[in-house]
């Protein structure tokens, strides 16, 4: 049944038992993202220590795909450097836009390869991307604030 290519076991598992759900009390950056076509919303806290992702926590409402996707993000990117996490994010985005022609590298994407089937359901790609876009936004903000620290440092 084609539906099962969308709703892989792994996805339903993450949906039913989401990882890192519940916002941490402290964080470096907090972002709030929304999917305008359906109204799904998530808040995501990102904490980085020595250029490594120390914690991603989140809260929100949404469908199984979007919830599972944030859950996966919050686990997969842990302990990665911002650069590594950025590269993984780009791989995932590419997978989502592959219209079912790619499978994704399990060594890099781990649980997220279970999302490969989503790329065949164009209306759901945004759901699968919601958590990743929130992460990318949060990481960009951290990089910007670092850059401006660096610049200030450099100009002294």
């Amino acid at each position, binding site marked *: *049944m*084609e*539906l099962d290519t*969308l*709703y892989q076991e792994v996805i*339903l598992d993450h949906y039913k038992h989401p990882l890192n759900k519940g916002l941490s009390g402290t964080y470096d950056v907090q972002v709030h993202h929304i999917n305008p*076509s*359906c*109204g*799904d*919303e998530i808040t995501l806290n990102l904490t980085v220590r020595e250029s490594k992702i120390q914690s991603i926590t989140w809260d929100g*409402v*949404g*469908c*199984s*795909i*979007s919830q599972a996707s944030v859950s996966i993000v919050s686990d997969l990117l842990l302990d990665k450097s911002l650069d590594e996490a950025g590269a993984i994010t780009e791989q995932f985005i590419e997978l989502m836009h592959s219209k079912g022609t790619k499978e994704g590298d399990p060594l890099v994407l781990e649980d997220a390869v279970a999302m490969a089937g989503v790329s065949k*359901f164009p209306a*759901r790609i945004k*759901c699968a991307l919601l958590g990743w876009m929130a992460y990318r936004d949060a990481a960009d903000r951290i990089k910007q604030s670092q850059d401006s620290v660096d610049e200030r440092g450099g100009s002294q």
Partner: protein
Amino acid sequence: MSFDVAAIRRDFPIFERTVRGGKKLIYLDSGATSQKPETVIEAESNFYRSHNAAVHRGAHQLAEEATDAYEGAREKVANFLGAKSEEIVFTKSATESINLIAYSMSNAPSGSRFALTSQDRIVVTEMEHHANLIPWQQLASRSGAKISWFEVLPNGRLDLDSINAVISEDTKVVAITHQSNVLGTINPLEEIVARAHAVGAVVVLDACQSVPHMPIDVKKLGVDFLVFSGHKAVGPTGVGVLWSNQLEDLPPFLFGGSMIENVTMESATWAPAPKRFEAGVPNMAQAVGLGAALDFLSKIGMDNIFHHEMALTKYFLEKLQEIPTLKIVGPLDLENRGSCISFTVGEIHPHDLGQYLDSQGIAVRTGHHCAWPLTRKLGVPATTRASLYLYNQEAECDLLVSGIVNAQKYFA
């Protein structure tokens, strides 16, 4: 009863196809857009094949035929609404129709009864589609006018107790939907129109979900403007209607060819309505298609369609409520209620439910249905909507119900 759904369905070629690997198409998304009967498709094609030319612009035979077809369509729309031809403007959609009114009001010279100032107020409701909300927010921000709204009660009805406070003396526009595309609620116009007119406000009626589904006579409604979209009324995409019996007082919106009286390099004056509102070569084939759509509906009879939908709605409401954890969002009684049926099912997210139903060939819509403030007010992230039309039948309800039950198992 003479209402023969099977015969009606045969007029709609899309029901010959299957979806998702051979499944019968159960189309419960007519609130978003309706399917098209062969006569409508042919009317548009036939215009292109035999009569295509720019209307109002040529002295040649094709131009005459195109003009006759286009103006004939205008007459059909007028007859369908109990209106006069010159009160009908063709737009591209209800969305454009509403924006037309709001922008034209901005174009009204100060002192005109349509010109709003910071002393004025625009009233909407919490159940408006974005198309009948944001254009008014924008008009308010352009003019400085204030925006107020009727609240929606938990039973899906407007809170009219406060009508005299909401429609205050400074109200200039009351923009309201005839039937909510989420709740199915049909709003009590009489009371609202009376109060609006008592304070000198005009009433703009969003009839997207009523004109296709019930007999409408604009004279009886008493509103000042009415809009609807062709594509929700078995008509083509790309055509909408604006009706008003006060077009003469309204300045134009889009500027260009065929809407002018005189033009110099520095200024221009305008043709009488409705031409004043139809700049450029119009959506001729789509207007003609809409004419054929209204003919199709009239032949079946709007009364018959309304009764068919009411009977179906009753059946759907009853059967759906047999599912534990399913909650109807909107009125449970059939009085003043149309066939848009929204609901939630326990913890299943509507997106997931919709996806599961799709795998069974059942097309519903999920999300906020372009009425996000309403969804928020209802305290749900989103809903699932089954919206019915003349070609739907009870058997489809049974399939929907078993689809939902199976979805519950799938996501359990």
